[in-house]
C-alpha cells in the first residue's frame, strides 16, 4: 500500500502503479494494433518498385560477372601462342584438314550433288 510503503522499497507500489497505468492508458488500443498489423502486412508484401530494385541489383551483379568472364575469355584467346585471333585459328584448322572435325565441317559446307 502506498501509505505504508517506504519510497526506498524495492517492491513495486501497487496503488501508484494502478493509478499510473490508468492515467497513462492510451485510447483505442484495437485501432493501434490494427495500424501496426497493417504496416507489418505492407512490409511483408513488397511493392513492385522494391521488387524491381532487388532484381536491378541482381542483374547488375550478373552483368558485371558476365563482362569480367568475357574479358577474361577474350584475353585468353588473344594470348594464344601463335598470336592469331580466334577466327584465324579456326580457319587455319579447317584448311589444314588434319583434324577429323575439319572433314565434317567441310563436308557439311559443300553443295549437295545428286
Amino acid at each position, binding site marked *: 500500500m502506498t501509505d505504508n510503503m517506504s*519510497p*526506498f522499497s524495492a517492491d513495486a507500489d501497487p496503488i501508484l502503479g494502478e493509478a*499510473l497505468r490508468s*492515467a497513462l492508458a492510451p485510447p483505442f*488500443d484495437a485501432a493501434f494494433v490494427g495500424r501496426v498489423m497493417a504496416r*507489418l502486412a505492407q512490409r511483408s508484401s513488397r511493392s513492385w518498385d522494391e521488387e524491381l530494385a532487388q532484381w536491378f541489383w541482381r542483374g547488375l551483379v550478373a552483368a558485371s560477372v558476365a563482362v569480367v568472364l568475357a574479358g577474361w575469355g577474350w584475353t585468353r584467346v588473344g594470348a594464344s601462342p601463335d598470336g592469331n585471333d580466334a577466327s584465324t585459328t579456326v580457319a587455319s584448322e579447317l584448311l589444314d584438314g588434319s583434324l577429323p572435325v575439319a572433314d565434317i565441317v567441310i563436308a557439311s559446307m559443300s553443295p549437295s550433288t545428286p
Partner: protein
Amino acid sequence: MTVVDEDALAQRASRGEAEAYGILVERHAPMARRVAYAILEDREDADDAAQDGFLSAWQAIGRYDPRKAFRPWLMQIVVNAARDLRRRRRVRTADSLDRVSPASRDDPARVVGDLDLGERLRAALATLPERQRIAVVMFDAEGFSQAEIAGFLGIPEGTVKSDVFHGRRALRKVLESVKEEWDDR
C-alpha cells in the same frame, strides 16, 4: 494468457509466424504505448514510437533468443525507438518542458490542483526529469525490475533506485493531495 502461452507465442514468432507475432503485439501494445508516452509526453509521438518498436522487433525477430523472456526484449526495442524519436523531435519536447515552471518542478502538487487524478498524475509526471519519469513508470506501473530498467536505459542500477525513489515521492504527493481532497468532501 499465461506465461507459458507467451513463451510459445514468442517461439512461434521467432520462426517467422506473423499470426503469433500479431497476438504478441495485441498483448503488449498498451504497455508499449504507456512507456513510449512516459518518454515522449505526447500521444501521437508515443504511438509512432511504439509502432516503430513493433516493426523493428518483427524485423529483428530472427535474432530473438526464445529461451529468454520476450517482454524485456521487446521493451528494450520500444524504449530505443522512443528515445530515438525524442532525439529527432528534441525541439518540440523542449517546448513542452519549458511550459512547466522551475518552481512547479520542486512541488508537482502545486501545478495539478484543479485536475482529475489521471490529469494530475500526467501533469506531475511532466514535472519530473525524464529519467525519473521513465524509471517510476517502468518500475511501479509496468513491473520491470530495477536491474532490467538499468539495462534499458544504460545506467547503473543504483541510479535507477534513486530515480524511482524521487519519482515516487513526487507522485505520492499528488495521490495524497487527491486523497485529502476526497476526505474533506
